[in-house]
């Protein structure tokens, strides 16, 4: 295991997040997101089909699963970037079904993207300032008179600069975001999301395409979010990272939640090992999720063999 996928300081794990026996869809002591019966199909493919899911508040939750498991689709549904076919879900007690993405963000649930969306032709500082909420100067009429927004703009700038210092991007503040490296863009996107003082930060593959030297500082930043009282939900493929920083792990496969638990529990879960860690590479995922009955297949195989031998 590469040393750099560890945070620099061993994190304090949150425990005692769930109520009752650990199982997919288990209730949480203090959930921030509760989703019920959320499903989304693309044509004949059911990309997401979640019966019940609760995300614990004040903890770092990892959403893992093989490619095509529906992690990003679930992200899009929870943040209003896509509309589900069925289901209801709430954030911090308020229902989010049918709420457009920008209102979801205003409520304090901010996301980043798998393919980083830094605004290339804006400077790093402008990117940051754009993240701040409730700006008077962003209304059309007030924007025409600087007296309405200049004081607030100065405050926002100070905040942006201190965040940039924290993310070690302050030297780049006047550069165009397009000139940053892939990893720096990830950092910028995360820092920009923090400009709005969110309660829940949703990171879609924060480590994808990040060079190893930056991985550690990204991990530290994610842990820092939790320390400052935010809830983090992230999608990730890097199991080592998940093991090190996540307090809770949700495993998806074929659109369904197949397992939940603390990282240690999940890593030892047979279904997860089968589905994700790939000890049974030749087994169809449908067997793990219960879509296909293994016995039926075996019977069918046996029947086919019989036919062939005749």
């Amino acid at each position, binding site marked *: 295991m590469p040393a750099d996928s560890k945070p620099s300081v061993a994190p304090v794990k949150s425990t005692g997040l769930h109520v009752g026996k650990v199982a997919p869809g288990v209730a949480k002591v203090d959930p921030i997101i509760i989703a019920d019966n959320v499903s989304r199909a693309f044509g004949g493919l059911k990309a997401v089909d979640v019966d019940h899911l609760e995300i614990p508040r004040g903890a770092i939750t990892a959403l893992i699963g093989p490619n095509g498991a529906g992690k990003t689709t679930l992200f899009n549904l929870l*943040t209003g*970037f896509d509309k589900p076919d069925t289901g209801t879900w709430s954030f911090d007690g308020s229902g989010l079904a049918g709420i*457009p*993405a*920008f*209102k979801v*963000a*205003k409520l304090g649930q*901010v*996301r*980043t*993207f798998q393919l980083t*969306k*830094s*605004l*290339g*032709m*804006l400077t790093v500082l*402008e*990117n940051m*300032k*754009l*993240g701040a*909420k409730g*700006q*008077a*100067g*962003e*209304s*059309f009429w007030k*924007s*025409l008179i*600087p007296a309405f*927004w200049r004081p607030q*703009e100065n405050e926002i700038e100070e905040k942006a600069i201190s965040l940039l210092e924290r993310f070690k991007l302050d030297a780049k503040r006047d550069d*165009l975001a397009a000139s940053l490296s892939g990893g720096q863009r990830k950092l910028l*996107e995360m820092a*920009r*999301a923090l*400009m*709005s003082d969110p309660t829940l930060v949703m990171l879609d593959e924060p480590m994808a395409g990040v060079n190893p030297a930056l991985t550690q500082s990204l991990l530290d930043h994610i842990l820092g979010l939790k320390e400052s009282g935010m809830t983090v939900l992230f999608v990730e493929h890097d199991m080592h990272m998940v093991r090190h920083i996540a307090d809770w792990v949700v495993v998806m496969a074929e659109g369904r939640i197949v397992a939940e638990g603390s990282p240690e529990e999940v890593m030892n879960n047979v279904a997860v090992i089968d589905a994700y860690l790939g000890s049974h590479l030749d087994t169809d995922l449908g067997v793990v999720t219960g879509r296909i009955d293994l016995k039926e297949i075996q019977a069918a195989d046996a029947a086919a063999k019989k036919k062939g031998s005749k």
Partner: protein
Amino acid sequence: MDFGFILGQTLSSLLMPETIAYAIAALGLAVHFGYGGLLNFGQAGFMAIGGYGYAISILSFGFPWWAGILVGMVASVIFALIMGLPALRLRADYLAIATIAVAEVVRLLFQSTIFDNYTNSADGLGNYHTSFREANPFPPGRYGFGPWQWSQDELWNRVFGLVVLALCVLLVWALMRSPWGRVVRGIREDEDAVRSLGKNVFAYKLQVLIVGGMLGTLGGVVMVLGSAVVPGNYLPSLTFYLWTILLLGGAATIFGPLAGSLIFWGLMSFLSVFLPALSTVGVLPFSPAQSGVLRYVFVGLALMLIVIYRPQGIFGSKKELTFNAR
């Protein structure tokens, strides 16, 4: 060849009402495309609304000239809403197709005989100048020098147009340096990212369409103030002249459209006298009239060359290159 005449024509064109009007309308396109990333191929429609709104309010309803301009502006907002509410939900390239279609619908409605009482269909409108000329602060006489010599009415048209242009430049500058402008430029880069930061992207796009459209309308008014409303002026080719001007000057710049308009009209007038002169002395194998039309070929060629070799325009910085042509 009379080079004095050719030079005089070229210089005089730099201060035509058309030059000023095109600069204002192209500034509207800069708001749409350069800052907001909206591909509006229907700016001719907004100009037509301005011209007709102004002329019809005066001729059919007896409004004073300033009320005519206000009517044009209000009509332009309504037009932007009709165009934007359905079309702004489309992706950029589909928006372009929708805008070109809507602008054509507007032109054909004005040109058709359905509203003949108001629009005078294909013959267009004229003789609505009294009210505007009565407001002229300049006493009768000849003004100017060299190639720029005008009557008091011609001077008033130009001064008024320049004032409108200055106000529009000021408006766009004030908007784009503000946080509002920052959101708008963010939308140009990536809508979803701006959405994820809690901004109502659709509302901003609608505002951008309205502001840019209003500038198009004001350009349309300035263009017809001293002349006439001719339906044939509002062909899609007008929109593409404006695009040439915008890309020539630089899409995300404030003075680019102005410079683009000066260069465009300077070149057009130069070629309109220079090419026939060439054919008269036998250099070009066309009749003088035919060779005058050749200049439109040059416009197309220029547009191609700019987009390929200098997509950021004359004033645009290579850094803020919005037209990612390659």
